[in-house]
């Protein structure tokens, strides 16, 4: 049983933020999701320690990276119908591509984020987002990707991809996004 005292509480006026630095930043996934064209880690270093300018690597997805996943599968995102977690043909096609890529990149682990549009209550949408992430996870697992490489998280309606109160925006927000979390270089 945990009895962690998360130092996230600002006590009175005394801003006791010093301890917060040690915590993992859990700002929106967009904030830490590797941007496709950004070189990352040692692989980005060309030779003799020189780093190529970002434009030059823009067309080359690094092995095991988010960009490579997107290139291989067509997308890291599958979309859902309103209040549904069923995978349509397009979603299965994308996830099939993701599964093939994951099978080729056996050291990659991913987190599947489930999201909803704003057309539901906060609580229900957290659960619906979880269902969507779980549906994508089950599909990948059924293609042979080890379940231990697949984790899920639901953001409900908290992290829309697109800001807007119309069907076009909602359609893009009802989604499951496969995010490379480790193993990529």
């Amino acid at each position, binding site marked *: 049983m945990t009895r962690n005292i998360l130092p996230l509480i600002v006590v009175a006026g005394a801003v006791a933020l010093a301890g917060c630095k040690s915590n993992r930043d859990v700002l929106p996934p967009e904030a830490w999701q590797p941007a496709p064209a950004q070189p990352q880690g040692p692989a980005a270093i060309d030779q003799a320690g020189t780093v190529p300018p970002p434009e030059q690597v823009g067309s080359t997805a690094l092995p095991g990276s988010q960009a490579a996943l997107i290139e291989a599968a067509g997308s890291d995102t599958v979309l859902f119908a309103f209040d549904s977690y069923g995978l349509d043909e397009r979603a299965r096609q994308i996830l099939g591509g993701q599964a093939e890529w994951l099978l080729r990149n056996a050291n990659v682990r991913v987190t599947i984020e489930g999201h909803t549009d704003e057309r539901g*209550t906060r609580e*229900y949408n957290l*659960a619906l987002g979880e269902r969507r992430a779980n549906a994508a996870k089950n599909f990948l697992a059924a293609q042979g990707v080890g379940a231990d490489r697949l984790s899920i998280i639901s953001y409900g309606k908290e992290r829309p*991809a697109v800001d807007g109160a119309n069907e076009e925006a909602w359609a893009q927000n009802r989604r499951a996004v496969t995010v490379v979390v480790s193993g990529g270089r």
Partner: protein
Amino acid sequence: MIARLALFLCSLTLAAPAAAQLRIDITSGVAAPMPVAVPAFPTGAAVATPAGTTAELGRQVAAIIGNNLSGTGLFKPIDPAAFPAPGMAEVDAPQFAAFRTAAAQALVTGFVTANANGTLTIGCQLYDVFSEERLVAQGFTVTPAGWRRAAHKCSDLVYSRLTGESGYFDSRIVYVAESGPRTKRVKRLAVMDQDGANHRFLTSGQSLVLMPRFSPVNETLSYMSFAQDRPRVWIYNMGTGQQQAVGEFDSMSFAGRFSPDGRTLVFSVTRAGNADIYAYDIASRATRRLTNGNSIDTSPSYSPDGRRIVFESDRGGSQQLYVMNADGSGAQRISFGDGRAGSPVWSPRGDLIAFTRMQGGKFRISVIRPDGSGERLLTDSWQDESPSWAPNGRVILFSRTERNGRSSLRSIDLTGRNDRRIPTPLEASDPAWGPLLK
């Protein structure tokens, strides 16, 4: 931190409770608010205190009471320029003729005096202007830092005497303050007095936080945090600053809410895409599963006697409200009709359940009896959700998102009148009204 306030009843002189007719029937909805005079509370001699002079406090106390009463929609404070400000001698013997001329029906008056030991005594009296009868009188002794609470206590006294219902002004609201673009929203827990005063943030905004709820009995909150990428329910003691994760689950826990005795927390846990309701005994940390199955069961809320729980479930195909026994047995669907129903919360009076009704592309706040009868929509806007009851069960706090994405806190009377905005420094959502302070 919340200072423990010395707040005593220093005198209790209930005058002539007999046949006073001055009364507001709040059950039917009030067409014309009662005109009430709330002149600045006089002080014997203006004394400097850490909170300002007693004369200044006298003006502010009156302003807070006027604002509280006005906010109910049941009272209309009269411009203080319409009558002479009373002196100390007139607190016990008001010049009723002057208040009658100003068309006041009720008079709230009192005094502010500084005591030798550094405390303040704030007197509070309510008169029927026409019968010249004193309806209630009470004094509150507070630390200078606690002067606003005395003004809220006085407001509660007046409201209670004139409506026959308990008040709700000496209470706080916890909610989620929002900033930044919608796609990367920063959310922070914040707490404030019910009138927006004494606002402070409880979290830094580093982690996404949702659905804070007050314990009905002490300085404790529950809320959901995405800290460490582990979305789960936490219990946070505002007095000690201590936090405790609720249960040990591999998966997400959310939608926590305390039992009426504050000893149990009910919440949902997801597993393989379904969500079930669990009860957590805070002292022993034992968890008990209350619902089972492949549906989304969430938003549990206890009845005030602790014997039943209302929750939402999609077990019947769409999101609807159900009532079950507190042990999880005997679930019965109570919401029917067009659309979906979610986020139910049981009134502290027990007579009604407030919830979010989704139909025709809109989200509206609605109430329904626990047996499923008498559903009544209270609001009509683009996206109203997350209802929470005032401690007296007469007013509902909720969050409203406009079509442009802006969100704010609002309250509405149970009669469907007086839809008003609760001021917050930033955009706001997920409000929860705390209990009356002790």
